[in-house]
């Protein structure tokens, strides 16, 4: 005879320590909430691992932790972000993402209703991207030991033969292409921080970029030297990283860099530089000059790349500086961010 188990009270219930203890409560949380949201044949088998087929080509793997605050923001939540972010890290290698794993560290007292919303949007984001969440893990920690919910996702994909994107392949004269406006995600998050809250229509750009990448790869192939998504530290950190890895410098044109007026205004208010602000649905590609226009055209043909722009070029520079001609008519260095991005006070 099966023991009676009360249904999960999604509406009013909360996660308690038993939901991470390995007993029935945990099994119920996993099957009632996560399987429901992610639903696929691998999860349904209920094993501790998932075996899967991969097609021809080399495998690509990446992993990322999500500790964002607040958990819900205009344009998404920690769940959709955890799916998009990891898909993008796979896609930036030029690969096609296939499977994800998801690990949850939940703080005692977390609302089931919030957890369900987050899990549902993960499932939705994965389905929309044609990617499956095929294995996972759940842990519950005491109140005060985690800020609500941390999610960590690992992604696996395959890379077509002949493609090998890497920073050291950049050459002098290569063009710098960006897929759209910068700073949307970071500004949307800031606008919801408790001590900053300001009214804005800025929405996070969180999105899965692998379809856009597939179009670009089809158009440019190996003339795409390297791709990155400018997340933490923004465009500035990303280009400095590539500059160090390739031994080159970059020269940007500020006027060509797309930034939405609302984002520019919010950054002005907070004393931030949009070039340092995080993005979650944008990519930057360093492309050989003869193929740059073709790749740019391919980007513009996709909705996530409709505002794509050519913003500068790789230059010879032993100092590996990222420089920019300002729209005012002068020049400046675009450096790494130091410490946390802190608003100025006067």
């Amino acid at each position: 005879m099966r023991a009676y188990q009360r249904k999960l009270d999604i509406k009013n219930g909360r996660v308690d320590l038993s939901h991470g203890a390995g007993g029935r409560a945990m099994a119920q949380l996993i099957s009632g909430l996560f399987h429901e949201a992610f639903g696929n044949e691998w999860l349904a088998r209920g094993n501790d691992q998932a075996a899967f087929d991969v097609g021809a080509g080399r495998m690509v793997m990446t992993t990322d932790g999500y500790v964002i605050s607040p958990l819900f923001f205009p344009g998404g939540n920690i769940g959709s972000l955890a799916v998009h972010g990891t898909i993008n890290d796979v896609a930036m290698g030029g690969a096609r993402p296939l499977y994800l794993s998801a690990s949850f560290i939940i703080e005692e007292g977390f609302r089931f209703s919030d957890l369900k919303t987050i899990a549902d949007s993960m499932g939705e984001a994965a389905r929309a991207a044609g990617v499956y969440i095929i294995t996972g893990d759940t842990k519950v920690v005491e109140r005060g030991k985690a800020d609500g919910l941390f999610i960590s996702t690992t992604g696996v994909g395959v890379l077509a033969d002949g493609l090998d994107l890497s920073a050291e392949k950049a050459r002098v004269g290569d063009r710098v292409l960006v897929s759209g406006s910068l700073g949307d995600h970071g500004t949307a998050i800031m606008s919801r921080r408790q001590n900053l809250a300001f009214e804005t229509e800025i929405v996070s750009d969180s999105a899965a970029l692998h379809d856009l990448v597939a179009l670009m790869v089809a158009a440019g192939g190996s003339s795409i030297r390297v791709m990155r998504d400018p997340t933490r530290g923004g465009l500035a950190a990303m280009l400095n990283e590539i500059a160090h890895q390739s031994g080159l410098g970059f020269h940007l044109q500020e006027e060509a860099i797309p930034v939405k007026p609302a984002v520019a205004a919010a950054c002005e208010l907070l004393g931030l530089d949009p070039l340092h602000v995080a993005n979650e649905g944008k990519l930057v590609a360093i492309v050989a000059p003869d193929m740059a226009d073709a790749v740019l055209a391919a980007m513009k043909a996709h909705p996530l790349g409709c505002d794509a722009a050519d913003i500068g070029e790789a230059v010879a520079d032993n100092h590996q500086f990222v420089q920019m001609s300002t729209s005012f008519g002068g020049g400046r260095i675009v450096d790494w961010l130091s410490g946390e991005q802190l608003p100025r006070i006067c």
Partner: protein
Amino acid sequence: MKYADEFRDKTIARGLARVIGAEADSQREYRFMEFCGGHTHAISRYGLEDMLPANVRMIHGPGCPVCVLPASRIDMAIRLAEQPEVTLCVYGDLMRVPGSQGKSLLSAKAFGADIRMVYSTLDAIRIAEQAPNREVVFFAIGFETTTPPTAVMIRLAEKKWLKSFSVFCNHMLTPSAMHSILESPDIRNIGRVEIDGFLGPAHVSTIIGTEPYEVLAEQFGKPIVIAGFEPLDMMQAILMLVRQVNEGRHEVENQYSRAVTRKGNRRAQEEVSDIFELRDQFEWRGLGLVPHSGLKLKQAYAQFDAEMRFTMHEVRVADNPACECGAILRGVKRPVDCKLFGTVCTPEIPIGSCMVSSEGACAAQWTYGRFRDYRLRRA
């Protein structure tokens, strides 16, 4: 962005640059000190120096409140925050400023001190309301611009009967510092660096008006042009300074007339003088003890004065002897003249305070202007 882009127009900037180039006497040098960190930041951010003729040079002044705060005050704040009952609320810029032992508020926080980053005085009030059992202290810093909000905050705390709320007051006064720079021996006597004029503070002047600078312009014979923080404001103000120098005038002129009046904001001035009074002297990093240049709370508000409440003591400490922040703040040296600049002192591990805030002369130079010197050195 409306109301901002108009002041960053490239075409107008080129026009102004041409006029400055035409009117500046090629037989002489013009050395202007921009007083404020906001000006320094804008110069670097927009690459303004690239637009000026070679004989018009900008000298970065001491107008960044974070940069001129001496290590001893940071030490005091760290000692205060280390007391278990204290919650210290600070502006983000201060977190990484090094104290005397290489310790910062950020590292004190990592060691367990309850230090919160706030964006406004009201955040601190809110924290105090939510934690009535904690001693909540606000680290008040800044020139005349940020003093009125602190005054309003103290009024609010009084009205709300906040019994365990206080302010660690580090408000400073700009005209006293300008006076001190103009009186300093390396500017007056040795004549190594002659300052031909000042770009006067923008936001500070919205509060105090242009009048307080008149005596300085008169006494030291230096033109002062109050300038806004937008790049075109500064270009126009530089042109006004060039004209004053050419015509042998030394007046206070107001470029930032859309926000600044001669008398300033009376209401704000009254708030401030109700609650604060002058200190006999206050230490500025780089300038030393400057008479009548700092504010403290009046006796009537002693209960809100953290220095009284916790009997805090200031122990003066010497800065790193190789650090040239002092000379840089007085405009006698440039960041690249300092042996530490870019070697052991970078924005990641600042030794001197000029490297900490993005408005500091060294940090601005490092972040935005490095390649200019690198080009010069290479040439």
